[in-house]
């Protein structure tokens, strides 16, 4: 048996013959996990090509730190998820990176520029989509994007092709002449994203982009983010809904009460915390089994072994539980400030 694999954790009711009880997980959760704030799990120091880097970034409101000594590194080309409950400091952190808010202490660097000193340079390469929709109700969709194209000083001659391209990207071509106030929330959200992309930024900062969206709109948004990543853009996206981020993020930062509790790729964080990926396998004989593995490599190894060695044919092989949820529950304490 591969050391990384944890054979069946449980069996489903549909399973005719219950599998033998599983051995204990190979990777035990380290005891340090229960007190996550004592040691920040961060990969920031190891990221070489970071488009955003913060060091001990702090924002104080009176005696209360909205963001306290956050150190992170966002690798270029990644989708970086900021996870945390409401009031964790995600928005404050993002507004400091976006040059909207001056830090109380610490430093931020966006592609080598300090947002507090050279905000113009930061804005040229950064698209920011705040939590609110922020749309002018009196304009039509095309006029709205034209307004922002002008505000970003894009030459007028480039507007038609730019706006056509953006509307195609966010799938709003047919709404070009529609009044902004006639759009659904999902459409307004996509329009806001198009607005943030008007000046073709390298870095996109999206604050709770999926809040209030229906399931279809969420799926469309997720696909849009993948498409943007494919275009070479780095995306920082926040949410307090883990399932939203789990599928799209290459890196995550888990925040609580203004602190960064863990930071890095989900697999690495999970590995360091001992969180296991739960997998469900359905076989051709109708049985279902669950497995726990520590990382993707182990997951591939499990699939290979099941396909090659197991007598039963594998009908379905899927990740069952939210590994990110386990990580989140492990590192956070439920502190609200």
């Amino acid at each position, binding site marked *: 048996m591969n050391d990384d694999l944890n054979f069946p954790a449980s069996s489903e009711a549909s399973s005719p013959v219950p599998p033998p009880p599983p051995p204990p997980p190979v990777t035990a959760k380290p005891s340090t996990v229960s007190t996550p704030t004592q040691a920040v799990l961060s990969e920031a120091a190891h990221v070489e090509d970071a488009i955003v880097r913060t060091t001990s970034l702090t924002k104080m409101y009176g005696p209360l730190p909205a963001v306290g000594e956050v150190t992170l590194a966002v690798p270029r080309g990644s989708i970086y998820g900021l996870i945390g409950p409401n009031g964790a400091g995600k928005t404050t952190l993002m507004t400091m990176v976006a040059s*909207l808010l001056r830090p109380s202490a610490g430093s931020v660097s966006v592609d080598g520029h300090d947002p507090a000193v050279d905000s113009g340079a930061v804005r040229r390469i950064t698209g920011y989509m705040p939590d609110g929709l922020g749309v*002018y109700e009196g304009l039509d969709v095309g006029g709205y994007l034209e307004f*922002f194209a002008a505000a970003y000083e894009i030459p007028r001659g480039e507007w038609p092709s730019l706006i056509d391209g953006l509307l195609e990207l966010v799938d709003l071509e047919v709404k070009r002449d529609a009044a902004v106030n006639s759009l659904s929330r999902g459409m307004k959200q996509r329009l806001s994203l198009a607005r943030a992309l008007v000046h073709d930024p390298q870095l996109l900062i999206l604050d709770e982009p999926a809040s209030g969206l229906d399931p279809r709109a969420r799926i469309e948004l997720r696909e849009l983010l993948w498409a943007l990543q494919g275009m070479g853009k780095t995306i920082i996206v926040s949410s307090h809904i883990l399932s939203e981020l789990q599928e799209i993020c290459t890196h995550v930062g888990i925040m609580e009460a203004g602190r960064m509790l863990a930071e890095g790729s989900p697999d690495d964080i999970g590995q360091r915390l001992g969180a296991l990926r739960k997998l469900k396998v359905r076989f051709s004989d109708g049985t279902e089994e669950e497995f726990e593995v520590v990382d993707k490599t182990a997951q591939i190894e499990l699939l290979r072994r099941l396909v090659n060695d197991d007598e039963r044919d594998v009908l379905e092989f899927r990740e069952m539980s939210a590994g990110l949820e386990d990580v989140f529950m492990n590192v956070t304490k439920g502190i609200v400030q």
Partner: protein
Amino acid sequence: MSEIEIEQSEKGTEHSEPRLSLGVSFRNNPVLRRELIERVRGVKVVVFVTLWLALLTLILVLAYQGISLNEGQEIDVASLGRVGRELYEWVLFGMLVLVLFLVPGLTAGAITGERERQTLVPLQMTMMRPRDIIIGKLSAALAFLVFLVVAALPLLAVSFLVGGVTFFDMFRGLGMLLFTGLVLGSVCVWISATLRRTTGATVVAYGLSFFFAVGSFFGLIAFAITDASRGVDEVNPPAELLSLNPVAAIADVLPRSANNRFSDDTITPFGGLRTAIDELDNNDRFENFDENGVPLNRNRGPRIWIYYVVVGLVLLVVSIRQASVAVATPADSER
């Protein structure tokens, strides 16, 4: 925020290419363009202009009726010039009162409205400088005011039929009216940039407009009461108290009657104020005599309207600057 921080905030959105800041603030200002599009779209503007013209027409008709009653059945040809001026001044006074009502409404929500619609942050993230945003907002309000004034020109032109008013008189009166709108608008935009909610900003802006319109008169009354309580024979409040008053400034910028006799002046609020201003000046005059013991003539210093323009320009510059600082980023707190 310290001076250095303010400079840094302003520099934060500076462009690499040198440019004439004020020129660019007006030319191709996206905020100005959008505001104008939003303002003139829909039926709201039609209703607005109709109401504006209806009220001014009503004032013109009432003024004409009042003058007819005052002058009797037949108006003396010799006093036709004064009648024409009275018609002009009544309509201009009506426009001033409406402007003092309109401008806070047009500008108090300029920035708070953006905040409430959650459009301020996306705007702050663009390459527009805070000053461009403020000037765009202010010039949009002023442009709308110019539009209303132009729409009312035919009503003002009625006075030309009677006579007594020159194009220069009209230019002076309307110029001062628009200047008043600009200064009041700039202070209201500053209020809007400083406060969080449109409701609060609107209340403060209307309070300011009211103070702007009548505060000086309260000041004069307070001075007069103080003089009287001291047992001064003739109360003598300083005419400069009217330096901040738009009614006094417009009254002062319009020409006096041909022979400068108070009794010949128009029977309008402006005419009444001109009389009051000249009375106050004369109070001072009789306290000063030349070497021959002859009382010095009136106009011992700059006219009221000149004070008004200077104070107004200072307010305009300070308001635009402070409003720009209030919307500048990076900010010290989330707004």
